[in-house]
């Protein structure tokens, strides 16, 4: 309270000081209880709950270094297993397609020592070399790949170093593809009678 005596020409400070010092009355003692007993928790919609879940901060859990190391080793192991199967399924197409009882496993062999890379393309893989790359046989230097094929007539060729396309020099039949390139022809029936002496060799 300002220590100023009463006067007939009060300053603004005097008046505002007195307004600040006006006593307040206390609400009834049971006021809080009377209000809160009528307060019911608000229902929250699924959408609101989901949104709040999305924007709520997460608490990072505590983890022991030993547990973290074991977890990492397990994850690396799983990754290795996954990658192994992934490579098997994609680099060796016969592995997946050979599940079909009618398919025949055919070994494509190309004798082209100067090639750095080779792949087989044909009607059976829509002329796409991905996953049909051949592997060099270290004993005789030839390029080889085993592919499971359905019975029927297949046109194919080899692609050397991603640039040069050649027909199979060992093939019994060839045909022109209409664009000036010759493709090899392979026919597989259910008994695999292709005129070849080696069932698995082309």
């Amino acid at each position, binding site marked *: 309270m300002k220590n100023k005596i009463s006067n007939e020409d009060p300053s603004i400070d005097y008046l505002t000081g007195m307004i600040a010092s006006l006593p307040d009355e206390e609400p009834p003692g049971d006021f*809080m209880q009377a209000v*809160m007993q*009528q307060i019911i928790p608000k229902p929250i919609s699924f959408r609101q709950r989901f949104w709040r879940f999305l924007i709520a901060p997460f608490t990072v859990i505590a983890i022991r270094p030993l547990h973290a190391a074991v977890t990492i080793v397990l994850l690396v192991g799983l990754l290795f297993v996954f990658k192994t199967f992934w490579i098997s399924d994609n680099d060796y197409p016969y592995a997946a397609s050979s599940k079909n009882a009618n398919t025949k496993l055919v070994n494509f062999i190309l004798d082209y020592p100067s090639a750095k890379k080779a792949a087989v393309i044909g009607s059976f893989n829509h002329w796409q070399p991905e996953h049909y790359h051949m592997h060099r046989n270290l004993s005789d230097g030839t390029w080889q790949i085993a592919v499971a094929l359905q019975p029927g007539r297949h046109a194919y060729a080899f692609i050397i170093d991603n640039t040069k396309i050649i027909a199979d020099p060992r093939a019994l039949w060839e045909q022109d593809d209409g664009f000036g390139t010759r493709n090899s022809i392979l026919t597989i029936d259910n008994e695999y009678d292709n005129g070849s002496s080696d069932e698995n060799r082309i």
Partner: protein
Amino acid sequence: MKESLLIKSILDGNAQEYAILVNRYKRPIFNLLLRMTGSREDAADLAQETFLKAYDNLESFKLSNNFFPWLYAIAANLARDNWRKQKHAASHAEQISQQMDSFLEEKTAVEEQMIVMMDTQRLANCLNELPHDYREALILRYHEGLPMGDIGKALGVSTSGAKMRISRGIEKLRALFQSSFSTSSQVPKGK
């Protein structure tokens, strides 16, 4: 706890935390309604209704604003509705006078007590003489200490409108206060 976080938590279903807001603002809201109704019973009922209405409409409250002006506006509207129903507003002057007795008990200098009591009672009477909008603007500014922007929100006017009300309210109060010395034998009765 920051008020916006508190309100978010209440909206998330933690209804019991509303008690923090009730406890924080029950006194100014009750006194606003007491000034407007002149009845403790009516003020308590309306204050209760204010907090319940605020809770029911809490979703519409903008978290970037301050809660008190919003709550105050709800209370003032309820009081106006109540006043329209009852068609009268009771004077609070007698109650202020009673409060003075207990309020001033702690003062030591008897002479100063007397002067202060007389001036405070005079001021309370003069405030009661002021139109509601001026009185509430002065109370919010100098008693509750609200910034101009919040006063504008509480009274439903712009910030410059709030400044004008306070400025004019002070001048009117000063004039009333001065004139009360010439009619000091009379106690103003209500609006």
